[in-house]
């Protein structure tokens, strides 16, 4: 098994160093089933960046996203025997990851904890040398707020399709829905986002006038 340093070096070098790109996911899964941990390491290195980015889109928290990624891979490892090798590994992995993340967010919402937006705002430090990023941050925050207002089933499609650029077929595989359903949800999600975004923009434009009137 490779040392931690070697793995990190390979991780920094990029995909080709460790991931054995010529070896298919199905082959690696078979090797893991045979007890080969190195094959699972290759799967982790192959997918962790993308999975982290997707989960981060939902939780907006680095540490939490890392935890969820790890939890996803542990679930995958434990249930690898149930995986049908004739299917694609990637959509299954993202399906587990997204479901785990959404479950976590639902539980958190039920418990009534504070919004994740405030957590990320405190995490990010402003670089004094760079140009004032507050304006951009405001836009980003507005977009996130609007996304948060969209129902979960539409938001998930919007994030996967428009932010992470999965194809409709991949989103359908991840969400275990028909492609036609995903396309309908995508259209609905975009329309809802547009409505909410337009309202926000109108409010933002009207508020200085109101202040002036006072």
């Amino acid at each position, binding site marked *: 098994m490779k040392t931690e340093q070697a*793995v990190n070096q390979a991780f920094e070098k990029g995909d080709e160093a460790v991931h054995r790109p010529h070896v298919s996911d199905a082959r690696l899964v078979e090797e893991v089933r045979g007890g080969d941990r190195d094959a699972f390491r290759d799967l982790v290195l192959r997918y962790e960046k993308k999975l982290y980015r997707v989960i981060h889109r939902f939780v907006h928290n680095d540490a939490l996203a890392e935890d969820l990624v790890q939890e996803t891979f542990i679930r995958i490892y434990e249930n690898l025997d149930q995986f049908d090798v004739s299917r694609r590994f990637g959509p299954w992995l993202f399906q587990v990851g997204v479901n785990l993340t959404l479950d976590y967010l639902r539980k958190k919402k039920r418990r009534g904890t504070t919004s994740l937006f405030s957590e990320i705002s405190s995490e990010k430090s402003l670089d004094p040398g760079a140009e004032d990023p507050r304006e951009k941050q405001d836009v980003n925050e507005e977009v996130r707020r609007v996304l948060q207002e969209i129902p979960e089933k539409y938001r998930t499609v919007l994030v996967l399709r428009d932010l992470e650029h999965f194809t409709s077929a991949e989103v359908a595989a991840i969400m275990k829905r028909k492609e036609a359903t995903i396309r309908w949800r995508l259209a609905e999600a975009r329309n809802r986002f547009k409505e909410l975004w337009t309202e926000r923009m109108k409010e933002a434009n009207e508020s200085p006038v109101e202040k002036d009137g006072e």
Partner: protein
Amino acid sequence: MSCHCAKNRNRLALLVDRDSVEELPEDIRRILANCPTCREHYELLCAAMNSLHQVQCEEAARLEKSLWPQLAHRLPEPHVQGLRYPEWKRKFVPLFSVTTACLALLIVFVGNRPTQNENRVYQTAINRGTSYSPLQYPTSFNVQDTSSHIPYSIQPYTEPFSQGDYPGVKSDFPDALEAQLRELLRQQKLRQGIE
């Protein structure tokens, strides 16, 4: 918004990714050109999606280092999937199958091969220099054997014979071979007589 505009909303939402209006289907382009409600909806949709894409580009989170070192410690012990058959069975079954198939092929192949025994002589039409034709059936019936109605020319023959056995039929055996066979028969008769 008319009912047609409501119908177009979803189509427009799915086509909003296109870089320019020219890439849109002809009917949609016509709708956008003629219907101000649809055009406004499409423009606002484009603006909203642009802001979303802007966030997407700026906010893509990056994993600084691999999670594998931490993950490796958390993984449960390797769970080797149990084999459905014991190891010896897994090896034995293909071996047995291949051996059986080879044997079957060998039997079929060897069984059909003509033997090299020169002592076996078949009295066939070709050996006798004549060939059988169904058209000649009654006329070519040249054997005076009343016990069988099968023409001689197609009768199988496995034993040597003497001219006296079948009058009118000339033997095709070489003289030396015929003499040898006669001698063998004579010795056999003598032996039987002694016993």
